[in-house]
């Protein structure tokens, strides 16, 4: 239901983060994430960073496949 975009945090100021996804940049709200820093990766939805995430899905893939298959 919710298009999410994974993006890298470029800068954070006053509850607003500038994020970059493949060179497309936008300011989003950083209000509901604590201690966001430049270089972090976030999942963005409707102009709000909703979760801190890892850059790629590869480690997760190994982890899930090893533990639950």
């Amino acid at each position, binding site marked *: *239901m*919710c*298009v*999410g975009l994974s993006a890298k945090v470029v800068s954070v100021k006053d509850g607003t983060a500038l994020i970059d996804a493949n060179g497309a940049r*936008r300011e*989003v*709200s950083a*209000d*509901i*994430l*604590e201690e966001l820093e430049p270089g972090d990766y976030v*999942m963005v*939805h*409707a*102009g*709000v960073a*909703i*979760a801190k*995430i*890892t850059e790629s*899905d*590869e*480690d*997760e*893939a*190994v*982890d*899930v*496949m090893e533990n*639950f*298959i």
Partner: protein
Amino acid sequence: MNEQARKARDIITGYKGRPLRIMEVCGTHTHEIFRLGLRKLLPDNVELISGPGCPVCVTPVGFIDEAIWLALEKGCIITTFGDLIRVPGTEMPLAGARAKGAQVRPVYSPLDAVDMARENPDEQIVFLAVGFETTTPSACLAVETAKKEGLKNFSLLTANKTMPNAYKALEGSADAFLYPGHVNAIAGNKVCEELKERGVSGVVAGFTASELLIAIAVILKNAEKGEPFFVNCYPRVVKDEGNPSAQKLIAKVMETCDTEWRGLGVIPMSGMKLRDEYAEFDARLKYDMPKITGKPNPACRCGEVLQGKCKPSDCKVFGKVCTPEHPVGACMVSDEGACAAYYQYGENL
């Protein structure tokens, strides 16, 4: 495709266990599953059905009528996620109202609608707040911002929904749920754990090809064991506790209420509305809106499609009267809708 995804794919294509019905309850899952052609990999004994997870699809006809009333009768500027613009109301969609002079603007974020209100103090801006747990924080942030700044020309027309009671309404529709990753990123996994205790299985899934393949493989492997299960297959985004700040924000600004789901009817305590302290931002109260009840097209079977009771192609109007260019039901409107996805991606390829 990485090595793990390939392994997962082999598990899926080689599945020989009992027949399984898996319901995805997230429109973006539906969309990605079709985009990847994932259904084509499934063996005959595994069926993926598209549940009510597209906020556009579950938004009732009356909500569109309410928005059009605000635009045409009250002269408000309607700001909305783009998907909602073509959803049919009783008489017309918002696109039709726009042709009659209504101002309808797609926005990326409700926060952009607040910016618009700040920059246009003489205009009344209404944001159409649809969506589930993932989207609700953005609407709450918008209201909080408007309140803090003392903006008097911004309000929400709310149709926000929550999933827990919908899962209950859908119990028995499928053998396992593919839980919506971004809802759980906010709400956490507690509801899914509780469902497992009650015998309802499912996994939280992400949205990349690899994440979807692995999530389905995990369902197939665990289903063979016969015990109810819950697995978080999206740990890089979803934590068990979800996002506590977002939960706190939602609880501060909104409270639960009964709400109508298109096709499913009213599900008790499955909606969100603004708390009394935020009443000035509630468009229904602010504009003293009369009770508006929409009349859906009786031929449309979106409701049954959403519950997995019929396939889009079983509906009489599907693909004939009801097409993405002229949608009858909401499931044909959004790219995420089950009917639109069936129609556009050619299920019978």
